[in-house]
């Protein structure tokens, strides 16, 4: 464990450095908070980076309306405990206002619609930096992302023309209407995140631990069942022991069959796993460049 702790320390130092650069270079700062483990780790790092002062960020949650009940409670508690402002913007509102249209059919997801709600929130709240928990090991388009990722006035990412990023000198200069996405835990792997959660004893929603849940199988992925979800005739709901490896919108979050009850057990399970965490994310399976396309449009 010695080796691991040493590299975790280096990753933590790097992430805290990035957080502080954000604090110094921007005005209206938010942490994109989804209720998942990566955003919980971000909040933890922000708490450490500015102690004993309060972190200079608000939390922004883009709510698809398809949540696990528990993550909302967790979110509210965390915000009030830290005394930070919690901002919530709803995809449903964007749909009602006609900003986006709701996808139909069994595979309907509000994942893409989230980008519109997010960009609208950024404009409305005059946010100039949104700090996210994206990691380069998650997905092949994310593997290309800078720590400080520039977005043009339409909120778009141009992966073919990213700013050079030398050493640890982060250039956050921008014109009016543009903004930045910043990813302090870019260099962390899923295993690093879990080991860090374990070594720092960070509290997580219990969804991450094994529990009984109604699930069904679609395209080789187990999905959590919720009353609003449309099933195909062949799909059958059953109850079993599972835990979440990632938590996002219910409609696209795969669950893992697992008996892991403790962080130690989760860490050994992750260390031995042969599939990536996004292997269970239905949203990435849509096309070859699904993530790149969503990111270009302004996704997290």
């Amino acid at each position, binding site marked *: 464990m010695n080796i691991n702790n040493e590299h975790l320390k280096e990753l933590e130092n790097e992430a805290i*450095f990035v957080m502080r650069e954000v604090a110094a270079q921007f005005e209206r700062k938010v942490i994109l908070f989804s209720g998942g483990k990566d955003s919980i780790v971000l909040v933890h790092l922000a708490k450490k980076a500015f102690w004993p002062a309060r972190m200079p960020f608000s939390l922004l949650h883009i709510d698809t309306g398809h949540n696990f009940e528990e993550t909302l409670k967790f979110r509210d508690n965390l915000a009030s405990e830290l005394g930070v402002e919690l901002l919530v913007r709803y995809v449903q509102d964007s749909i009602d206002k006609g900003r986006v249209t709701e996808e139909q059919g069994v595979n309907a997801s509000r994942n893409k619609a989230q980008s519109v709600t997010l960009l609208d929130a950024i404009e409305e709240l005059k946010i100039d930096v949104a700090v996210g928990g994206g990691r380069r090991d998650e997905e092949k388009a994310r593997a*290309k992302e800078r720590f400080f990722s520039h977005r043009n006035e339409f909120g778009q990412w141009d992966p073919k023309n*990213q700013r050079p990023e030398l050493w640890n000198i982060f250039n956050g200069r921008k014109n009016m209407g543009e903004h930045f996405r910043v990813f302090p835990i*870019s*260099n962390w792997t899923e295993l690093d995140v879990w080991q860090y959660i374990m070594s720092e004893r960070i509290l997580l929603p219990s969804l991450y631990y094994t529990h009984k849940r109604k699930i069904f199988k679609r395209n080789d992925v187990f999905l959590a069942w919720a009353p609003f979800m449309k099933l195909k005739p062949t799909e059958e709901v059953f109850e079993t022991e599972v835990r979440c490896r990632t938590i996002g919108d219910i409609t696209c979050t795969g669950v893992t069959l697992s008996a892991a009850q403790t962080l130690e057990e989760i860490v050994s399970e992750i260390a031995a796993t042969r599939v990536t965490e996004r292997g269970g994310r239905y949203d990435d399976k849509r096309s070859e460049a699904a993530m790149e396309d969503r990111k270009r449009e302004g996704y997290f």
Partner: protein
Amino acid sequence: MKLNGNGDRRSLLRFTTAGSVDDGKSTLIGRLLYDSKSIFEDQMEHLEQSSRRLGKEETDLSLLTDGLRAEREQGITIDVAYRYFATPERKFIIADTPGHIQYTRNMVTGASTADLAVILVDARKGVLEQTIRHSFIASLLDIRHIVFCINKMDLVDFSESVFKDIRTDLAGVADKLEIEDPHYIPISAKKGDNVVEPSGNMGWYKGKTFLRFIETVEINKSKNGVSPRFPVQTVIRPQSSEHHDYRGYAGRVAGGTFRPGDEVVVLPSMLRSSINSINVYQKNVNEASSGDSVAITLNDQIDAGRGSLFVPPDEMPVSSNEINLMACWFNETPLRPNGRYIVRNYSCEANCSIKSVNYKMDINSLEKNFNDSLLTMNDIAHLTITTSRPLFFDPYKENHITGSLILVDETTNETVAAGMITE
């Protein structure tokens, strides 16, 4: 930088690929991850599908890092991809960079944080201009460990003499660039020879495989260890009743070690104080060394903030409003000789103008050209800049953090150059 208990063997190694377009950099990374069983099942499935879709006969391992749509269409790398893997020996952060000259800025981005560079050479083509450019950039960035992989040995019948000839040419380049202790490994990234497993086709090669090499290379204690340097990023002032008088200077130690009680000079104000406490979250620690993100409180209330640098009174950095540097130019717009730019050196920002382009490097001959002062994209040159106020810095060779800077265009806000301070 951190050392573990066994002396100089660090547990985390950051390395970058380099070399000309199509020399096999991405394939090498794919092969490395594949043969070390670091590719996940769903990633592998995805690679196979994509390879089929692109009409390839076999699974193309370069697709593991070439993740952008345009990269897959064109079969080249455009921007750096970062990959992570671990063996029982070490953890690795890999930057797979593009070889195409048009994307040199992305290569520099990936290489700027590396401890080691692996520079690939196509055995059929030998040393090319891009091989030299990338070797030069690696030496400018002061990457201490350079390993040349002579790749595609399968296409030259695994010939020892081809390897030796290229090695001789590379040794000439390394010599000119004063690269210390370069290594040479004959490999086939596509077939796997000498990547993870020793090659059965090149019995004449007795050295380490690529993986064994990067697992065991001793990464020297960085020179960032010499003079204590602490650049302030931001000031932490809680203004709560509980911590009413707390004023912590937040930053990451950029060299040496600081301890409570140490005398420091705060630049640029030149005021002296001493360290009251060093905080890591709620803990007071006895020391902070290079790489540590901490908050420091001082025993006197003095003027310090973002851009300030704490240093010991007897180890002052250079102070000047004229700075000489080697610069890599990244922008499509050439350097404007009388133009104004913004210079960023750690957390410190100032305006600057270009005083002179002293010489430009001719990449093929590695000679200095004193007659050409037009700096266009991908050029490397020695410049003198004049800053609006004196900056405090060290030569890059002594400290990569206080000795590096970027130039930013005032109107576009783009990062137009990377600079390594020479004196």
